[in-house]
């Protein structure tokens, strides 16, 4: 099984030189730590920063410089600040090349739920609905099952939907799956995880790729 860091590291393999990338809160944020050496990737933070740098030191911390997860961050040479309307103009007009999000549920049609549990948890969608409605390339990073051990990869969502037919790929602690017209396609397995393990943990339609490989975690 993959750790959170290993999930992030696997997603980082999807990055390409010159990409503008928006990383959600949680595991997606960790992807920034694994940008391949020599590759230039620009991080967009939807609260109004393009070119997000690493965390500051205690000496350089600035309350007026945070990311979308409300964490203190820094700028880099070439960074820019802008207002929220401009930020979502970038997102809706398709200029962000890759979006990595967490999810509560994904179904085999690529629909995603990640903003609300009726009657229990109401945090809001933040920028997630704008991102999933517009991004061409959306990868979900999440655990394969919830805390109760139930599958988060379903045939139908049980929670309110965030966006329809938008997820292209899911990377979990067990595997990598593409979303295809035939449902989930298992393409890579984590070390020590069997096809049967994935089948047991996946409630939606699942097909095993003819070219199934193991996720490189070294």
């Amino acid at each position, binding site marked *: 099984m993959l750790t959170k860091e290993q999930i992030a590291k696997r997603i980082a393999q999807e990055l390409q030189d010159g990409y503008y990338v928006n990383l959600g809160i949680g595991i997606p944020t960790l992807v920034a730590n694994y940008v391949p050496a020599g590759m230039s990737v620009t991080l967009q*933070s*939807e*609260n*109004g*920063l393009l070119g997000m740098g*690493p*965390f*500051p*030191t*205690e000496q350089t*911390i*600035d*309350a*007026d*410089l*945070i*990311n*979308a*997860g*409300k*964490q*203190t*961050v820094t700028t880099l040479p070439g960074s820019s*600040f*802008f*207002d*929220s*309307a401009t*930020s*979502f103009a970038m*997102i*809706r007009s398709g200029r962000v090349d890759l979006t990595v999000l967490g999810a509560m549920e994904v179904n085999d049609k690529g629909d995603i739920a990640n*903003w*609300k549990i009726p*009657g229990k*948890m*109401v*945090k*809001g*969608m*933040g*920028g*997630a*609905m*704008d991102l999933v*409605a*517009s991004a061409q390339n959306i990868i979900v990073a999440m655990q394969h099952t919830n805390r109760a051990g139930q599958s988060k990869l379903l045939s139908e969502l049980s929670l*309110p*939907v*965030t*966006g*329809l037919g938008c997820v292209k790929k899911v990377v979990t602690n067990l595997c990598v799956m593409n979303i295809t017209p035939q449902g989930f396609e298992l393409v890579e397995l984590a070390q020590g995880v069997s096809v049967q393990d994935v089948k047991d943990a996946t409630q939606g339609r699942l097909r095993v790729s003819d070219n199934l490989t193991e996720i490189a975690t070294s």
Partner: protein
Amino acid sequence: MNKICKNADQAVSGITNDMTLMLGGFGLCGIPENCIAALARSKVSGLTCISNNAGVDDFGIGLLLQNRQVKKMISSYVGENAEFERQLLSGELEVELIPQGTLAERCRATGAGIPAFYTPAGYGTEVADGKEVREFDGKMYIMERAFQSNYAIVKAWKGDTEGNLVFKGTARNFNPMMAMAGKITIAEVEELVAPGVLDPNEIHTPGIFVNKIFLGIDYEKRIEQRTTQEL
């Protein structure tokens, strides 16, 4: 016309019960701390607050929630406030959750004289309930309306007595659009200067949008997630 107010209490003195307010900020970054404190002192109630977040339990808009001064919140993300969640789940507080980009664009439209626009965000979700849906070039969109807001309250880094504003870092966020969108706009600033001190090339919000301005004091600028690294 003199736009200068002595302090926050004077700036918010025209705000009365049941008004709709826009409040700038993302999380606790770039929030109008002085005006929120003044509203909390004023005991004005029944407010509808349009703001991306609802503060935390004991800071930002959380202070107004604690005092039960807020009737309705219009926000995109409210996850950091337990009192908010309690009031919402118990039905004491009315809440409209809308996508962040839609919130920003609705503010922008309000200030730009645009009554409505189409966005793909929220299509197929409960956000689209009751809204006009329309297809453009093979993609589905929902119609979103501009807001009606009595006051907009923003926080800027620097301002001059003409009302021109400059924001700092990610404290800019919703402030420029909201500054354009209030029937009356109040700006609180960390530095208030004479006309001519700010470079016209670097003004983010032209003074025409700002009705009242004052020099804020004692900024706490609380940090929600203090993340650092050793070099």
